[in-house]
């Protein structure tokens, strides 16, 4: 019976520029710190043991929202509070504003950032626990052990990505600027994620998300989140939809769901495109969502409920957006 010492030890460095940040991030074991609202709880529990913590909060160029016509570039350290309060964001990208407002509670949002939300760790009841607790179960595949307590036969971690922004950004066809020591690359938001709860980000070591780029909106959008309490809780499921409805029927629909697996799930919408938005179409979407998402028992709330409620939220949101 051993106990991991939990007092974290690391070196804290405050980067003045992206260049400095990526240079430091090239050191093995370096970690980005933005708002710290996801990273620091994990540090306190000994879930992360970085050698260097690189704070990007002081980099001037990352904290702005820039518009060109109706397209928008949002810096990685823009806070969720600012995003949720921005009138232009709310009118142009309602899904994004609604998702930002749905994160945690006010104090999480005044610290938490866009980049941190996109890159937040995955979650699982067997993982987000103290050091003693994890020692008591011998750790798990995601960290410090060799079984998964959720699916003991498997060799894969099912911890769920629970960020609220990602589905909205995916539905809105956002792209990300990713900087590294080698330069800058651009990737679709949806490509940031991998289907592995223990390594869910498709970032290379040392890479930093610097901005989110949004094309002009193509229709309407919205975000709905299921949680037990009216605040604080991570999503049991969160659904974002971007929708363009023509004279009579749906011309384009992107539906993305968070909180139901290691990565946000993009739900195929072929079945509803071309249909009018009515109860039947909504039910069809609900069924498609329920078939597409496969939450595992990573929450204290039963997984079946997360699947069911994702379908309900999608159907409702569809009707609301079309109304």
């Amino acid at each position, binding site marked *: 019976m051993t106990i991991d010492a939990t007092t974290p030890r690391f070196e804290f460095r405050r980067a003045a520029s992206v260049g400095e940040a990526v240079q430091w991030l090239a050191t093995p074991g370096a970690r980005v710190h933005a708002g710290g609202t996801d990273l620091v*709880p994990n540090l306190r529990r000994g879930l992360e043991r970085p050698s260097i913590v690189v704070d990007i909060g002081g980099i001037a160029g990352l904290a702005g929202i820039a518009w060109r016509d109706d397209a928008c570039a949002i810096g990685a350290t823009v806070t969720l509070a600012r995003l949720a309060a921005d009138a232009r964001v709310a009118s142009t990208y309602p899904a994004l504003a609604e998702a930002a407002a749905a994160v945690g509670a006010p104090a999480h949002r005044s610290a938490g950032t866009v980049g941190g939300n996109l890159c937040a760790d995955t979650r699982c009841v067997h993982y987000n626990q103290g050091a003693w607790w994890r020692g008591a179960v011998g750790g798990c595949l995601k960290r410090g052990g060799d079984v998964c307590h959720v699916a003991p036969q498997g060799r894969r971690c099912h911890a769920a990505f629970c960020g609220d922004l990602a589905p909205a950004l995916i539905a809105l066809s956002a792209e990300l600027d990713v900087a590294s020591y080698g330069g800058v690359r651009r990737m679709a938001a949806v490509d940031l994620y991998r289907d592995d709860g223990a390594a869910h980000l498709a970032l290379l070591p040392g890479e930093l998300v610097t901005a989110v780029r949004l094309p002009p909106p193509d229709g309407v959008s919205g975000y709905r989140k299921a949680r037990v309490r009216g605040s604080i809780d991570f999503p049991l499921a969160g659904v974002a939809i971007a929708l363009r409805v023509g004279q009579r029927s749906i011309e384009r629909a992107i539906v993305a769901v968070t909180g139901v697996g290691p990565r946000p799930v993009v739900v195929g919408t072929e079945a509803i495109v071309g249909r009018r938005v009515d109860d039947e179409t909504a039910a069809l979407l609900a069924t498609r969502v329920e078939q597409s998402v496969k939450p595992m028992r990573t929450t204290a709330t039963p997984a079946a409920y997360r699947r069911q409620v994702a379908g309900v939220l999608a159907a409702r949101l569809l009707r609301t957006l079309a109304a």
Partner: protein
Amino acid sequence: MGTRLLEVTVNGRTRCDAVDDATLLVDYLRRSVGLTGTKQGCDGGECGACTVLVDGAPRLACITLAASMAGRSIETIESLAAAGRMSPLQRAFHEHLGAQCGYCTPGMIMSAEALLRRDRAPTEDAIRAALAGNLCRCTGYVKIVESVQAASRALAEGER
């Protein structure tokens, strides 16, 4: 592993203290500065008891690294009473029983303070939204809402 000299403003006074890089803001305030008004109710980010203001915005001191506060201005519950007199919010919490055991109170008041600075006459919904990260186990929140409303009224009267 590192130590640094941290320059911050705490309750209006500029300080410079040696802190370990891994020090949490809540420990810095409670242990190094000696301001124990800021409380801790959970193991990180889940209850709001440690809410302080950083440059006027509510922040959870228990998941904030002290080192990241360089150059920032921090306000704690101890800053509100001027010359020992309760602030309008403090007086309202006292008179309307917004505090029972008082443990959530410093965090609750700091969240409410951030709200009232932004919006002196908030609606009930706005009050509930602003305090939604502060758990209280004693009051059922009814008298907390009433306290913030009373403070808002007192501010309005003070202006007149």
